[in-house]
């Protein structure tokens, strides 16, 4: 057994920032990560970090843009915390040596970005995330913070009181990928989940293969609700074969989208007569898919993004990286051919419900980064707002877990008096425990009276038995088959376009996946670096997460932000200015709602129509 004050699960931007903050607050902190820290997906971010740094800009403007961008589904206290703290946190990165792009006077550069009323996106070339990740890892090395890398966290160790608000988290169960050893990690003061996004729930995503929603699923099963999971951002220009992202910069510079008939469809088919290719992400994504669905897609799958007319000089000057991406990942030379693109899953606005301190309703359990929902992005995230979220809320979670007093949070968590239960929607399949018995529940037995050590020991024992049974089982279904089916269902039915019927179909298939998962087995008998085993455990997590995305999408019968419903194509403020919460109620998802907080420090953010 390993013991530390604070245990951070995940070592991307959010995890690294949390660990540094907890360390600075005096805690003995350790990071446990399934990848070496520099391999985390934060490294893929390109665009930049939003921070109101310059004269003419201020946090209130940034907050306003963010609330509007969210389609009024973000909580004002969270948004204001983000925008008030991101300038200091961004400059702090500079102080740690981050190689930001520079102006003539030597100050950090900022550039305009979609949905921002001021050019406040601070960047380091087109590799902002790479630098942010490395700079923070350097600081972790400098401080000598312990990192258990290539340790996969399988379970949280939590007491099992009936009401999650009474539960307490004592640590995690980890699995050493290299040796196969399973051990308990005891956390005296807190566990911080910073496990990133769940992009692998979809079969076409800009996310890394490691983005399997592990933290989401573990927190969910421990009793912390998942919030606003239906809000998934789809980026209109990802490469069809891999999902690698082609930056919005191409369209910004004048790149044009064509269908298979050579038509500039954004205009010719009237999707956005004013803004054309530069309409907002969701509008362009919907237009592309409509073209494909109506038979005007290239190879029935994608559309063309053409930048040849920009000329070699301009392309080399501003979009060089895009040429490499198209060449390396699609085998296409962007100077002489148009590039194939289609919408890809990109970002999850929802996640583990937390307050402004990163705390969930389970005592001692925190979440930060893309796996968490504070909520700052609501129905739609603005580009450049995820990276500041990592550093601002990562730091706060780290400090709070280490015992710093951050005051009383305004955002509530867990089931309480202020929520409303879901009563209307009929589910296509009875949710239940199908497929779950094989892995047991995360909340260890023992309840209040049990000692932390005892609960930890039992959890480790259960995890060992679970792994043994997966490896010893001689045949059955392989995870890859289930995963592919799940991803396909999500992409077919819970994608950019959503209909009630489609979502119901998806839920049925997800349920089938659960059933099949009961018969899952691991073919590779080895304990050494068994990725077959790891992916099998991840697949279970994807099933749980996919189900919450689909359930959220089914009950939210309105059109807000990235969530488009055919049956109801208007935003319904009267009924839907509220967060969707799904909690794991003894093996059954139960759904409830909590009102959005639109009251900020000095003003109330009145919902207005967003015009495209």
């Amino acid at each position, binding site marked *: 057994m390993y013991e530390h004050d604070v245990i951070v699960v995940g070592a991307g931007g959010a995890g690294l920032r949390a660990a540094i903050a907890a360390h600075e607050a005096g805690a003995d902190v350790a990071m446990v990560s399934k*990848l*070496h820290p*520099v*391999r985390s*997906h934060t*490294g*893929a971010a390109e665009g930049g970090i939003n921070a109101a*740094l310059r004269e003419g800009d201020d946090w209130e403007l940034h907050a306003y843009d963010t609330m509007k961008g969210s389609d009024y589904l973000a909580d004002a206290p969270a948004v204001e915390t983000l925008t008030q703290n991101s300038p*200091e946190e961004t*400059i*702090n990165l*500079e*102080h740690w*040596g981050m*190689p930001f*792009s*520079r102006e*003539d*006077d*030597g*100050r*950090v550069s900022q550039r305009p970005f979609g949905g921002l009323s001021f050019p406040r996106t601070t960047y380091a*070339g087109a*590799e902002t*995330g*790479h630098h942010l990740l490395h*700079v923070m890892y*350097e*600081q972790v*090395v*400098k401080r000598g913070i312990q990192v258990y890398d290539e340790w996969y966290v399988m379970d949280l160790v939590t007491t099992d009181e009936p009401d999650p608000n009474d539960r307490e988290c004592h640590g995690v169960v980890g699995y050493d990928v*290299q*040796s196969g050893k399973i051990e308990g990690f005891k956390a005296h003061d807190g566990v911080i989940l910073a496990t990133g996004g769940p992009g692998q729930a979809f079969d076409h995503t800009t996310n*890394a*293969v*490691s983005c399997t929603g592990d933290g989401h699923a573990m927190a969910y099963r421990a009793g912390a609700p998942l919030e606003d999971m239906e809000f998934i951002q789809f980026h209109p220009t990802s*490469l*069809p*074969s*891999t999902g*690698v*992202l082609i930056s919005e910069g191409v369209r910004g510079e004048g790149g044009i989208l064509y269908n298979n008939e050579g038509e500039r469809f954004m205009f010719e088919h009237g999707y956005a007569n004013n803004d054309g290719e530069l309409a907002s992400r969701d509008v362009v994504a919907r237009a592309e898919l409509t073209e494909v669905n109506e038979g005007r897609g290239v190879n029935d799958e994608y559309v063309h993004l053409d930048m040849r007319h920009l000329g070699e000089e301009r392309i080399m000057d501003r979009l060089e990286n895009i040429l490499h*991406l198209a060449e*390396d*990942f*699609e*085998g*296409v030379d962007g100077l002489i051919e148009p590039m194939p693109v289609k919408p890809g899953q990109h970002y999850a606005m929802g996640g583990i419900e937390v307050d402004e301190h990163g705390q969930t309703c389970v005592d001692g359990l925190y979440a930060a980064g893309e796996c968490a929902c504070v909520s700052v992005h609501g129905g739609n995230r603005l580009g450049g707002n995820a990276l500041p979220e990592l550093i601002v809320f990562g730091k706060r979670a780290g400090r709070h877990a280490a015992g710093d007093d951050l005051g009383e949070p305004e955002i509530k968590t867990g089931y309480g008096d202020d929520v409303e239960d879901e009563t209307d929607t009929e589910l296509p399949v009875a949710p239940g425990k199908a497929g779950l018995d094989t892995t047991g529940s995360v909340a260890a037995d023992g309840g209040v009276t049990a000692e932390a050590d005892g609960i930890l020991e039992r959890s480790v024992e259960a995890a060992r038995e679970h792994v043994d049974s997966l490896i010893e089982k001689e045949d059955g279904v392989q995870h*890859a088959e289930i995963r*592919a089916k799940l991803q396909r269902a999500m992409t077919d039915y819970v994608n950019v376009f959503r209909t009630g019927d489609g979502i119901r179909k998806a839920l049925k298939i997800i349920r089938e996946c659960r059933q099949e998962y009961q018969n899952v087995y691991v*073919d*590779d*008998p*080895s*304990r*050494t*670096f*068994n*990725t*077959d085993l790891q992916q099998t455990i991840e697949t279970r997590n994807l099933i749980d997460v996919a189900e919450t995305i689909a359930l959220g999408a089914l009950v939210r019968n309105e059109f807000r932000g990235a969530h488009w419903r055919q049956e109801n194509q208007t935003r319904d403020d009267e009924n839907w200015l509220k967060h969707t919460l799904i909690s794991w109620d003894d093996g059954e998802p139960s759904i409830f709602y909590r009102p959005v907080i639109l009251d900020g420090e000095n003003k109330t953010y009145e919902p207005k129509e967003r015009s495209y």
Partner: protein
Amino acid sequence: MSTQQAEPESQEAPKDPEMQGAESPAAEKQKGGGMVDQTSTDASELEGETVHIKVFRYDPEVEAKQEPRFDDFHVPFEKGMTVLDAVMYARDEYDSSLTFRHSCRQAVCGSDAFFVNGKQRLGCKTQIADLEQPVRIEPLPHQEVVKDLVVDMDHFYDQMHTVEPYFQQEDLPDGELEEQRQSRENREKVKMSTRCIWCGACMSSCNIAAGDNEYLGPAAINKAYRFAMDEREDEEIKEHRLRILEQEHGVWRCQTQFSCTEVCPKDIPLTEHIQELKREAVKKNLKFW
């Protein structure tokens, strides 16, 4: 843990046609693949064909895999297919025990550096259509093999840590929102060095590193360059950095063979950076070996 050294000898061995004949059960599992051994640089020629990959296999724990071998897979080709796509396909469709590191699929996480047709490359950044078939995929040479294509990276990380890879300017501007000033030129100067993704390809390609376990190696020296040349750190720290670099197993070991520069997937001019640091050390009158 018992490990196996992927020495050049063992990589040469399977070139023997006799040994190639020993196709693995995994390869037999798939039918009607239409095995074509062709050399191609034109993707359209491969359309509708399968690609023949030979993948290094080794697992210290599994009896059948304790003796290193190559397994053959025939993977349906798709336009734009990378080496990583091919091994993922082989794993998901034919043999789920096939093991390798990978994550981002876009050349930023640095986890899938392999030895492909005799050269260190990122699997995700290498187009299958550009390679001669059969495509031989092996773990990085000069590193201990943990299993299949996975090598032990600890030594690489240790060397990276040796150069104190973190910014060390304590004298920061007053006021929380005041940044340090850095000229555009200086940022340009360090830019390439900051692109390193810790993939380990350079270290694996370096003959000197192969013979001298203590040699800092190209990646770590480049990391030190990144800080030593950053004007935001002051002179004293720069001198401290140069002292680390000019030690016996530092920059002077480099024999400018350019193999690191050749394989770096981020096009970092590693050899040039090492040379520049040698010149700096001379200028500073630091002793050299």
